[in-house]
C-alpha cells in the first residue's frame, strides 16, 4: 500500500532540446511558504540507485532524511513510519534514477565591491592602509546573490565557498549551503580563508599601477602584519616604550600566515601560479591556488609544491574562430589550448596534486557537468571526477564528517538524477539541500521569436519613465543581447523564452547599481509588456520592436556554408 504522499516524477518529453530547457529552468521550493507554519521534515527517497560516495554504488536502496540530516542509507533499511516517501517511477528502458551527494563548489566569487552606503565611491580605508588591502573584510548577508545561488543549485551544487571579489588581500569568505533563506539560513563557516590576488591595480597614476607594484604592496603588507604582531607582543611585555602604530585589520592576516585558515590565491595564468608559489613562503600557511585551466603547461614546476591545493576551473575555451584552412591569423596558442584544455583535469589528477574542480570563471555554471563529462572522456577517472567535486572539497573545508557523501549524520544535500550525473546532458530532477527539496520545474518551448531591437519604456512610478533599448540576438533557444539605458550598455547574463514570455537578467553595475536586474516580458507580435525588478525597485515595462529579427548578422559558420553553396 503506497502512502498517498507519494509523487511520481513528472512525465517529460524526451526530445534533447527540451532536456536542455529542464536544466535551465528555475528551481522552486515545494510546499512551505503558503502554510506559514513548519511542515514535517522526514523524507525518504525510496527504491533508488545510490552513489553514496565516489566509487561506491547501491543498485537499489533508500535514503532517509530527518530534519535536514541523513539518517540512514542502504538497501535493507526500514522506512520510518513518519516519513514522506518519494518514488521516481520510470518507464521501461529508462535509465534508473540515481541519488548522488550534492556537489561542492570550492570557489565562487561574489560581488563584494565596497561602497559607502549608496555612494559610488568606495569608503576611505583606515589610516595607514591601502584601499586594496582589506584582509578584515567579510561576506555579509547583504552580499547574498540570490539569482546566482539559484544558478549554482541548478548546476547541482548544494554547498559552496563564497569568496570576496575586491582587492589584493580581499578578506575572508564563507562556507555555506545553497538553500533558501539567505546567508543566515545556510552558512556553515562564517569566516573561511583569506582570499588574495595580484590582479588588481589602482590605475596609471596611483600605486600600484603594475603587476610588480601589486606584488610589492602585498609583500610589504605581510611584513607589516608580521611586524605588528611582533611589535605588539614586545610592547605588551615592556610597556615602557613608545606604543607601536596600529594598522587596523592587518591582524586578520595572522591566521592565514600561521595556517589557521587557508590562504586562497586567485591566479590569472600559469606564471601567476608560479609567482604565488614562490611568494608564499610562510612555513605554516595552507596555500590554495585558484587556477585557470592552463596548469598542464607548467606541471613539473607545480609538482615541486605537492602540499598546495589547486582549485581548477572547468572553463574550457570555445572553438576558435577560423576563417578557412589557410587562416594565418588565428593563434596557435589559442588553437592548442582549445584542443588541450579538456585534458587538464586528468593531467592534474595523474600528477597527484590535491585538486578540486570549480565552475569559477564560467560566468554561469551551466556547462559545468558537461565539461566534467568531457574531461572524463579525455581520460579522467569518473570516480576521481566525482571526488573532485564532492569528497575532496569536503576534506579541504574540514567538512568530511558533514558533506561530500551520502551517509548517516551527513547534511541531507543530494542530487536526484535520471541516469548518470557526469554526462553531456545530465538530467537533474531534484536538488535536496538540508533536507529541503528543490524541484526543477518544466518550462514551455518558445512560441514566439523575440529576437530584434526593442524600444522599451521603464515605468518607475513616482520617479517617472525611463527609455531603454533591449537588443535580443541569437535564436529563441539560445538568446543573448544587451540592455542600454541612457547610453550605458550592459550585456545580458541570462535570457530565455518560455512560451510567449522572455526572462532576462543582467548585472546593474553599469547603471551604477549593485545587484541584478530582472526583466520579464510577454511578447505579442512586435509589442511587449511586463515588469522588472532591480536595485532601484520594481518597474513596469512596455515597448515595441523597432528592428525585426533575422538581421543579417550571420555567424562565421553560416557565412562559410553560404559561400560554399555558391
Amino acid at each position, binding site marked *: 500500500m503506497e502512502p498517498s504522499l507519494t509523487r511520481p516524477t513528472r512525465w517529460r518529453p524526451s526530445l534533447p532540446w527540451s532536456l536542455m530547457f529542464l536544466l535551465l529552468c528555475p528551481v522552486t521550493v515545494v510546499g512551505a511558504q503558503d502554510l506559514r507554519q513548519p511542515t514535517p521534515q522526514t523524507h525518504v527517497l525510496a527504491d533508488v540507485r545510490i552513489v553514496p560516495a565516489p566509487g561506491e554504488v547501491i543498485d537499489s536502496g533508500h535514503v532517509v532524511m530527518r530534519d535536514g540530516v541523513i539518517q540512514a542509507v542502504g538497501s535493507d533499511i526500514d522506512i520510518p513510519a513518519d516519513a514522506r516517501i518519494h518514488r521516481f517511477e520510470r518507464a521501461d528502458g529508462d535509465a534508473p534514477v540515481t541519488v548522488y551527494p550534492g556537489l561542492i563548489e570550492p570557489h565562487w566569487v561574489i560581488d563584494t565591491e565596497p561602497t559607502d552606503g549608496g555612494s559610488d565611491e568606495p569608503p576611505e580605508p583606515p589610516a595607514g592602509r591601502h584601499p586594496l588591502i582589506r584582509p578584515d573584510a567579510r561576506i555579509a548577508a547583504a552580499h547574498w546573490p540570490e539569482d546566482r545561488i539559484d544558478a549554482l543549485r541548478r548546476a547541482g551544487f548544494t554547498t559552496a565557498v563564497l569568496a570576496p571579489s575586491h582587492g589584493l588581500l580581499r578578506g575572508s569568505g564563507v562556507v555555506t549551503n545553497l538553500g533558501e533563506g539567505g546567508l543566515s539560513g545556510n552558512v556553515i563557516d562564517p569566516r573561511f580563508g583569506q582570499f588574495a590576488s595580484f590582479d588588481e591595480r589602482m590605475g596609471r597614476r596611483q600605486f600600484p599601477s603594475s603587476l610588480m607594484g601589486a606584488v610589492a604592496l602585498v609583500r610589504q603588507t605581510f611584513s607589516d602584519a608580521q611586524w605588528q604582531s611582533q611589535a605588539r607582543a614586545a610592547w605588551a611585555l615592556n610597556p615602557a616604550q613608545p606604543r607601536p602604530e596600529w594598522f587596523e585589520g592587518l591582524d586578520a592576516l595572522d591566521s592565514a600566515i600561521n595556517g589557521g585558515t587557508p590562504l586562497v590565491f586567485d591566479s590569472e595564468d600559469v606564471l601567476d601560479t608560479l609567482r604565488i608559489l614562490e611568494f608564499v613562503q610562510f612555513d605554516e600557511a595552507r596555500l590554495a591556488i585558484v587556477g585557470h585551466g592552463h596548469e598542464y603547461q607548467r606541471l613539473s614546476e607545480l609538482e615541486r609544491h605537492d602540499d598546495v591545493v589547486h582549485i581548477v576551473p572547468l572553463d574550457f575555451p570555445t572553438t576558435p574562430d577560423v*576563417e578557412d584552412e589557410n587562416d*594565418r*591569423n588565428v*593563434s*596557435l*596558442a589559442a588553437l592548442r589550448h582549445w584542443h588541450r584544455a579538456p585534458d587538464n583535469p586528468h593531467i592534474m589528477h595523474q600528477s597527484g596534486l590535491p585538486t578540486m574542480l570549480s565552475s569559477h570563471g564560467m560566468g554561469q555554471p551551466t556547462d559545468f557537468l558537461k565539461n566534467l563529462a568531457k574531461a572524463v572522456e579525455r581520460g579522467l577517472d569518473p570516480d576521481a571526477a566525482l571526488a573532485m567535486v564532492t569528497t575532496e572539497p569536503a576534506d579541504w573545508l574540514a567538512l568530511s564528517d558533514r558533506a561530500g557523501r551520502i551517509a548517516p549524520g551527513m547534511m541531507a544535500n543530494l542530487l536526484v538524477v535520471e541516469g548518470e550525473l557526469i554526462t553531456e546532458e545530465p538530467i537533474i530532477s531534484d536538488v535536496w539541500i538540508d533536507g529541503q527539496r528543490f524541484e526543477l520545474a518544466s518550462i514551455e518551448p518558445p512560441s514566439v521569436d523575440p529576437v530584434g531591437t526593442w524600444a522599451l519604456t521603464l515605468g518607475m512610478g513616482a520617479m517617472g519613465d525611463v527609455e531603454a533599448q533591449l537588443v535580443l540576438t541569437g535564436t529563441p533557444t539560445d538568446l543573448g543581447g544587451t540592455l542600454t539605458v541612457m547610453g550605458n550598455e550592459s550585456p545580458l547574463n541570462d535570457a530565455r523564452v518560455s512560451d510567449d514570455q522572455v526572462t532576462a537578467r543582467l548585472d546593474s553595475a553599469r547603471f551604477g547599481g549593485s545587484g541584478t536586474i530582472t526583466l520579464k516580458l510577454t511578447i505579442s507580435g512586435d509589442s511587449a509588456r511586463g515588469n522588472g525588478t532591480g536595485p532601484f525597485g520594481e518597474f513596469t515595462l512596455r515597448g515595441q520592436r523597432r528592428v525585426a529579427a533575422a538581421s543579417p548578422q550571420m555567424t*562565421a559558420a553560416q557565412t562559410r556554408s553560404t559561400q560554399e553553396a555558391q
Partner: protein
Amino acid sequence: MMNTVFSMPTKRAAQQLMGAVMLILPSAAAWAQVTVLQNATVHPISAPAIEQAQVVMADGKIVDVGVDLDVPADATVIDLTGHHLYPGFVHPATQLGLTEISSVAGTVDTREMGQINAALNVEVAVNHDSELLPASIAGGILTAHIIPGGGLIQGHSAVMNLDGWSWEEMLIASQAGQHIAFPPGAVDDEDNEDLSRINSVLDQARHWHQADAAASAGNGERPPRNDQLQALGPLLAGETPLMLHANRYDVMEAALDWADTQGFDNVVLVATPDVQHIASRLADADIPVILKNVYALPMRRHDGYDASFKAPRVLAEAGVKFAIADATRGMDVANARNLPFQAGSAVAHGLDPDIAMKAVTLWPAEILGVGDQLGSLEPGKRATLFAANGHPLEPMTQITHVWIDGARYALSDVKARRLYDRYRQRHPGDESP
C-alpha cells in the same frame, strides 16, 4: 665658376646652370663644368660593376660611365682609388622633412586629422633645414619619397632630393602617389563604414570630374569648386598611382580585390613583410610593392623568427618588383639612414645581394616613376651618387663622398660629425679600458 662644386658644397650648384633643357653629350659643352670621378669601382646597378672606372658628371647629370673615357682637359678630377661608387639610395617611403623631434608636437606634421585628406601635398611642408636630412644624406639616402599619414585617403606624396635651398628646389616629382589606407575592418565586412566612406568619396569625385568635363565641352554647368574631389582626378585618370597601404596579408588581399572593383590599374602596394604570403598574386598582377620594415617583429607569435627578414627573398623568388623601406614613420624617420642595412639583413636571409641593391636604388626609382632620372649610374641620369669604402649595405662601411645633382655635399658639416670632431678633442683619453 671653376670652384663652384667646392665653394657651395652643401647646396646644389648645378641648379644655377640649368636655365634651359640641354642635351647631355659624351663630350660636354665647353661652358659646362665637368667633374670626373676616377679610379673607383663603379657600381651602375643597371649593369655589372666596373673596376678602375670613371664617372663623368656635368650640369648635375651623369655624362658617361666607363673606363678610359675622354674627358675635357679642364675637368675637375677626383681620385677615388680604393672606393666604390653607387647611385644614391632612394628611400621609398618616409616622412623626412615633416617631423623633427617626434615628442614635440610643434615640430611634427606627419599626420593630418580627419579621414579624407585627398588634397594634401606633403612637399609644401618639407623643412629643407631639418637636422634629419643631413643625417640621412650622410647615410647615403640622397632621394626620398615623402608620404603623408592621416586618415583613410591621405593625400599626395612627393619624390624629393634631400638637399636644397627650399622645398621647391628639392622637388623631383610632385603627386607621386595618392595614398589610401585600406581599412582592416573591411576584410570580412562588406558594409564597413570606413570603406563605404572611401567608396562614396571616389564616386563623388568621378561625378565631379564627369560634370567638369561636360562643362569644358560646353555641355553643362561647371560643378562647384571642391579641392578634394578635384585632387582625386589624377588618381581616377590613372595618371597618379594608387599607393595602397595594408598591414596584414588578408587586408592586402581585400585591398587588391577592392582596387580591382574600383578599376584602379596603376597600383603600388605599401605593405608589411606579411605581403610575402600573397607574393604570387602580386607577381601575376604585376603590382609592385613598397615593403615596410624588414626589421619588424614577426606579426604573430607563431610566425617564424625570420618572417620579416626573409620577406624580400620570397618576393624576389616570386618575381615581384619591390622597394625596401623602413617603418616609414615614428622613430624610424630620424634613422632613415639605416635603410641600406635592412636590405643587408635580407641578404643574410637569402636575398641576392644585387637584387638587394636594386631594392634600395633602381627599383624604388622605377616604382616612384623617376626611374629615368635616378636609381642607377647611367648617362643622362641625375648625378646623385656616393662613394664608400666598402659594401654600402654593410653597417661597418663608411660613406666618404656624396654628390647630389652633381654638387659635392660636405659631410663634415653634418651635426653629428661636428659634435664628434669637437668632443673627441676634448676627451682624448689615455687608452682603452
